């Protein structure tokens, strides 16, 4: 595994509030180029909030988010996509009224290199042959697992520098979860895509990630190489249910 030491994403003292309630209480983290970094934590810890703040879906109260040299804090979401960030949101959120092909095309909305887009479409179909069988079906008619594949595939279609994945294992069967995680590893290794993975399934996430953070009620309580995190006594008890 080639590990470049430069950082792709830097989050500094990030604070996000929902009304009066603090969801993130000044967290800092860094995602190194070419790595899979995972953010684990219980429901409501603020994991999805972090991804929404990075992709511009919610406003940041204070702190800073930068991508390479660019400060992307509080930019509108469509501009952040232009900087090379692609977010596959929680609960899949695929366009139910668009066909599978149209969903994937929307993933590549900002791209002008139509030949390369066609190539990436083939690659998504290679990774998820099920999607190819359903190419002209409306997104809303897909099963939960297929929708999850489509959400991951659609986020890939942007050919982002940084892929944000929110709970790709949510609500799908174990075999499919395994397939999707395998795909995440492939995307990272073969396309060199940097990935920030938010997961409740800490076991799986730590297995494929290079580095991990543990988020608890808006604070990062632990960070380190994922092998170390997986051995941590506290994590084993709280998140790996051992």
């Amino acid at each position: 595994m080639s590990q470049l030491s430069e950082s792709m994403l830097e989050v500094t003292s990030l604070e996000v509030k929902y009304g009066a309630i603090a969801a993130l209480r000044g967290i800092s983290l860094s995602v190194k180029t070419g790595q899979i970094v995972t953010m684990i934590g219980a429901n409501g810890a603020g994991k999805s909030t972090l991804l929404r703040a990075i992709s511009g879906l919610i406003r940041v109260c204070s702190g800073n988010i930068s991508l390479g040299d660019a400060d992307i804090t509080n930019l509108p979401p469509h501009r952040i996509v232009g900087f090379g960030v692609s977010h596959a949101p929680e609960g899949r959120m695929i366009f139910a009224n668009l066909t599978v092909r149209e969903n994937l095309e929307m993933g590549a909305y900002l791209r002008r290199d139509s030949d390369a887009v066609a190539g990436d479409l083939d690659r998504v179909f290679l990774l998820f042959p099920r999607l190819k069988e359903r190419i002209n079906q409306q997104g809303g008619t897909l099963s939960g697992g297929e929708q999850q594949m489509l959400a991951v595939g659609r986020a890939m279609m942007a050919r982002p520098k940084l892929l944000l994945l929110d709970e790709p294992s949510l609500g799908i069967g174990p075999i499919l979860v395994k397939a999707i995680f395998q795909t995440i590893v492939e995307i990272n290794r073969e396309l060199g895509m940097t990935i920030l993975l938010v997961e409740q399934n800490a076991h799986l996430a730590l297995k494929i990630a290079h580095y991990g953070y543990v988020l608890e009620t808006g604070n990062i309580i632990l960070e380190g190489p994922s092998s170390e995190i997986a051995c941590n006594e506290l994590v084993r008890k709280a998140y790996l249910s051992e």
Partner: protein
Amino acid sequence: MSEFLQQVINGISLGSIYALIALGYTMIYGILRFINFAHGDVFMVGAFIGYFVAPHVISLTGGSLWIAAPIVLIVTMVGCSALGVTIEKLAYRPLRSRPKLTVLITAIGVSFFLEYGGQLVFGPDPKLFPTLIPSSSLINTQHVVIGTNSIVVILTAIVLMLLLRFIVYNTKMGTAMRAVSFDHRVASLMGINIDSVISFTFVLGSGLAAAASLLYASVYPSINPLMGIFPGLKAFVAAVLGGIGNLAGAALGGLIIGITETFVSGYISSSYRDAIAFAILILILLFKPSGILGRHDRDKV
């Protein structure tokens, strides 16, 4: 029998005009989930743009209506599109995150502004709309008269609806429109600029209203600043009847309202002409609020 045929042709002709206006209501509803009550008044402004532009264009083209009419059509469509986009930018965009009711009331305000601003600028008296469609009878038997008017209206409406269908279902911008209509936030995660898509929707909707206004004024050539109220309301009923948010539904609803209205005024009494659309509205709201082709709104997660 022949009178029946005559009524059908007239009904389809009127219905295609309602359909063009209804498409604007339904598209804007699809994207923003509110009824743009100023839409009928954009239609009225279209008729006045046509009224002022047409004589110049006709004299410039040496009186050939077949050349002049398409030019007037394009100028009017561009003018109304600009108006629609401006209304959205100035009146609706600042209220984007407010409750829908706020926007709805603002739309009613914009509607009054255009109606009474129109009276101030154009004067309240009716004006005679210039002839844009060369009038002659294509078929003229003892019982049935089919004029170029009806045929031009129907053909123009069909061409514009096919064009709209192409834009919405076969272009990237159209796909983006459908994506935005599903969910603004998810669409913005694709890199879609929501504001541009909304502006584009107003361009399309107002452009169709402009075309409808020229066709309408060619059939009923007396125009005034309040002329948009009834066609606007009926087209709104058409959009609800077909299933608001649904393009095919708006076209179908427009035809049904147009044909029903023509039949009521032809066979019963023209005094009920305007009432029938609202009777239909009450019936749909009672028995099938989602409309003929409409589906219930998806539950948002």
